[in-house]
């Protein structure tokens, strides 16, 4: 073989190929320091450079390394000054826009003052570092002795203080950047309840939770995820209430994530989900701090991601997705009734089109005679079978919804006029679809909007199509089987080891008071059994309102008088 290959190689001049610049391997080792544009090292090598470069004694060398490694970025600011009577070179490194300018001025002032105060002792290069470190009391300090730590600090908005003659830097916390104001989340509105919503800033988000739960046992741990973005991901829980196994599970799952960037908590959600191929969401996400706080009080864990207002709550259970804060904030009977209604409409949004198809195709005798006659009369002249009709209209509606979502607000109403009024009306007039189908599709859509969480509503949307096909092929038997398969799937799901359908499968009697039905809050003495098992008692029982027998006012109840 070898001689043959040699001949081929020699013949290769017959087929001249365009010479590629060889980026790989050969040049990788070589550093071309002067011209950045011809620096062919790849991203992982560049990242590794950061990790292995330590700070050195010479300040100028350090600063050059920083500018080299960051490419002298536009927003990188390096300020030099002299400190102390011996005029030691000091540099301040920070990113513009990430820091609070005033605090940097303060910082420099303090550095100057303190170094001049210590005329007698700390004037030499080595000692000035320790002096400043001791005397800087205004901000949180950290030490950094290599580039990686240093950069990690300044990329978060810290300011690095570098001294000539010391191979270490001080990172002072001077974070201050602009963020969106706290507003009510548009996707989760309530009639009654706090109007605050999470924003993109992790610090503000943790403070929103901390303000609600002032216990020292609200613990917030954080890790960085993403090899490039190094996104801060924090998980909050109430120590002593959340199960240790659950915490361990959350921790290990988060630590196992190894990706380049986290831009939204949805990515994390997909990494830590239990049944990745399931159509049902097993992690709950919300923008509302009150929901998160309530979940923490039940013994769940909240995962907050920097850069997104969406907080992930684990473990999630099925009924959680059909509850809204209003259920608790209004009178308890209406809370219970609305919950029941919501579950009913959730089921409708899955099964209604399928039922329509099945009954009309296979079991028309199930409907009262007049009703079936009315429906059949309107279907006169419609060219499609019912299944096709329903599928077409559902598809049209999905397109409509998606289009409405992407449109700018200003022309939003236009789509509803064109879509709903013109298209629907014209389709019926033209006899392409029957009014019955339009009614069913519209009602299903409205029912699906009553699901409080979007993630559950979209799984209902997907399952709806499967049910339509089942109903179209096997009639009511198909729908029953679909229902059974759905239940089997739901009960076999687990979220972080907790059964997804609890308190219904497995059935837990003590949790029934706050489920489909919500009882009075002072009667909900017990925490959810599977989650809050470490301390089942939430509050002492018997706290119901009492007659004011003890008061001495004019309304005193005199029992003896008849």
């Amino acid at each position: 073989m070898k001689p043959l290959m040699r001949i081929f190689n020699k013949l290769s001049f017959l087929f001249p190929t365009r010479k590629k610049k060889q980026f790989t391997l050969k040049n990788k080792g070589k550093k071309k320091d002067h011209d950045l544009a011809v620096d062919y090292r790849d991203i992982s090598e560049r990242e590794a450079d950061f990790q292995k470069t330590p700070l050195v004694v010479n300040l100028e060398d350090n600063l050059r390394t920083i500018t080299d490694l960051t490419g002298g970025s536009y927003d990188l600011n390096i300020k030099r000054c002299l400190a102390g009577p011996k005029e030691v070179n000091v540099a301040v490194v920070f990113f513009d826009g990430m820091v609070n300018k005033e605090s940097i001025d303060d910082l420099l002032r303090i550095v100057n003052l303190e170094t001049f105060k210590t005329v007698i002792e700390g004037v030499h290069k080595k000692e000035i570092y320790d002096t400043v470190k001791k005397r800087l009391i205004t901000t949180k300090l950290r030490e950094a002795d290599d580039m990686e730590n240093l950069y990690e600090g300044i990329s978060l908005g810290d300011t690095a203080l570098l001294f000539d003659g010391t191979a270490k830097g001080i990172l002072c916390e001077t974070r201050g950047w602009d963020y969106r104001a706290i507003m009510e989340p548009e996707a989760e509105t309530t009639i009654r309840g706090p109007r605050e919503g999470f924003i993109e800033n992790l610090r503000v988000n943790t403070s929103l939770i901390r303000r609600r739960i002032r216990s020292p046992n609200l613990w917030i741990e954080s890790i960085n995820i993403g090899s490039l973005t190094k996104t801060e991901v924090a998980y909050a829980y109430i120590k002593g209430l959340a199960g240790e196994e659950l915490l361990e599970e959350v921790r290990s799952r988060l630590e196992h994530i190894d990706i380049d960037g986290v831009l939204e908590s949805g990515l994390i959600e997909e990494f830590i989900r239990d049944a990745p191929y399931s159509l049902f969401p097993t992690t709950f996400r919300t923008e509302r701090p009150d929901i998160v706080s309530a979940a923490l009080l039940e013994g769940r864990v909240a995962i907050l991601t920097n850069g997104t207002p969406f907080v992930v709550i684990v473990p999630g259970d099925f009924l959680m997705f059909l509850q809204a804060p209003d259920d608790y904030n209004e009178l308890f009977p209406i809370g219970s009734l609305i919950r029941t209604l919501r579950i009913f409409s959730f089921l409708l949004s899955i099964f209604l089109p399928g039922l329509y198809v099945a009954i009309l195709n296979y079991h028309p005798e199930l409907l009262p005679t007049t009703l079936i006659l009315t429906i059949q009369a309107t279907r006169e002249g419609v060219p499609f079978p019912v299944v096709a009709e329903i599928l077409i209209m559902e598809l049209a509606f999905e397109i409509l919804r998606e289009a409405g979502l992407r449109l700018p607000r200003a022309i939003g109403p236009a789509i509803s006029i064109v879509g709903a009024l013109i298209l629907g009306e014209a389709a019926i007039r033209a006899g392409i679809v029957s009014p019955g189908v339009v009614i069913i599709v519209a009602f299903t859509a409205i029912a699906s909007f009553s699901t409080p969480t979007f993630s559950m509503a979209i799984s209902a949307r997907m399952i709806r199509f499967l049910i339509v096909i089942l109903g179209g092929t096997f009639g009511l038997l198909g729908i029953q089987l679909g229902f059974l398969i759905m239940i089997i799937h739901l009960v076999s799901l687990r979220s972080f080891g907790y059964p997804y359908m609890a308190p219904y499968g497995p059935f837990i009697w003590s949790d029934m008071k706050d489920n489909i039905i919500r009882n009075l809050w002072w009667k909900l003495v017990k925490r959810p059994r599977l989650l809050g098992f470490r301390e089942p008692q939430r509050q002492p029982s018997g706290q119901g309102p009492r007659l004011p027998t003890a008061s001495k006012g004019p309304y005193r109840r005199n029992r003896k008088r008849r």
Partner: protein
Amino acid sequence: MFTEKIVSRQLFYLLFIMRVTIVISVLPVLTAGEALQDAWIAGAVSFIPSAAIVTLIGALTIAFPGKSLVQYSQELLGSIAGKFISLIYLGIFLFMAGTDLRIYAEVLKTGFLPETPISVIMALVVFVAVLVIFGGLEVLGRTADIIFPIFLLMILGSLFFPLIHADFQNIQPVIARGWSPLFLAIVAPTSVTAQYANLTMLAPSLDEQHKTLKVALWSLLAATFVLVCFAVVVVLVLGPDVGSRAAFPVFKMIRATRISEFLERVEIITIFAWGLGLFIALSVNLYSGSKGLSQVFGLQDNRPLILPMAVIWVVFGIQGYRDFFEVAQVFDPAFFDPIFITALLFPMLVLWTAYLYKRPWKKQPRGTTQNKG
């Protein structure tokens, strides 16, 4: 290894749903023709012999905690004889499940899906049972948790809706023809207790195994109550003659229900409840059958056996009966009792004999006897 557990409540649900399903489907032959308007008394009295049989089945599982019938029969009778007895015993699961399946499929075919081949209906229904058993017994228990309230509501609905047509003349006179027809009518509901054969396979997975028998008897009592209710309502609505001769009187009764102009055709809820119940019955039988067979042959897992077993069921359901009328009469004592005696009573009696002969409860731990000597 992770062992799957169900709790007593779930076992109760499973047994109750299975028994009530049979009641809905084959009530006429259950409280057979001889009793006529006294069918409900026969149903109530049948609790006593049924309870005896359940005790016969369930008491041994308590004596051998953590072991299924296949395992303790080998302990009692030796390996070969034990396996032989177990195989006979396992036959009852095939029979019950195949028959249940065929009856349901026949009703669906005649009532709702006249053009669908019966094999398709049966395969579909079995497919769901296969799914749940692949999930494991725990999943089945939780499914029962969710299904039970729905099932109960539907049963109550199909009991109360027909009451509007009730005629209380139908139920009189009470016990006019003496007790003898009653005793004949007791035989059928008693032999349907063969369903409780599943108890011996489910009990090892129960978390509190000493409660097995208690749970089984309570479920039997509850189911007997439902049976009596249905017998009363059927006789009230249809009258003794039609009630004892129609193929599916419960079904016939609900089909005739019509409340004002709007509420008619409520039999769909009965069919739906029946479907749910059948699903539970099939799954439990499938679990017991595959688990038992895997234990007979010493397999680690019962999952490889599930699919072939399901296929065999469908084939048995189709080939086992010539036509609809043969299926409808399957629980007739003349037909069913020989099967009941060979597949259930005979193995149980053999095992009990062996048990009483060996007296394992008298065996003392070795340490104590040595100390005495």
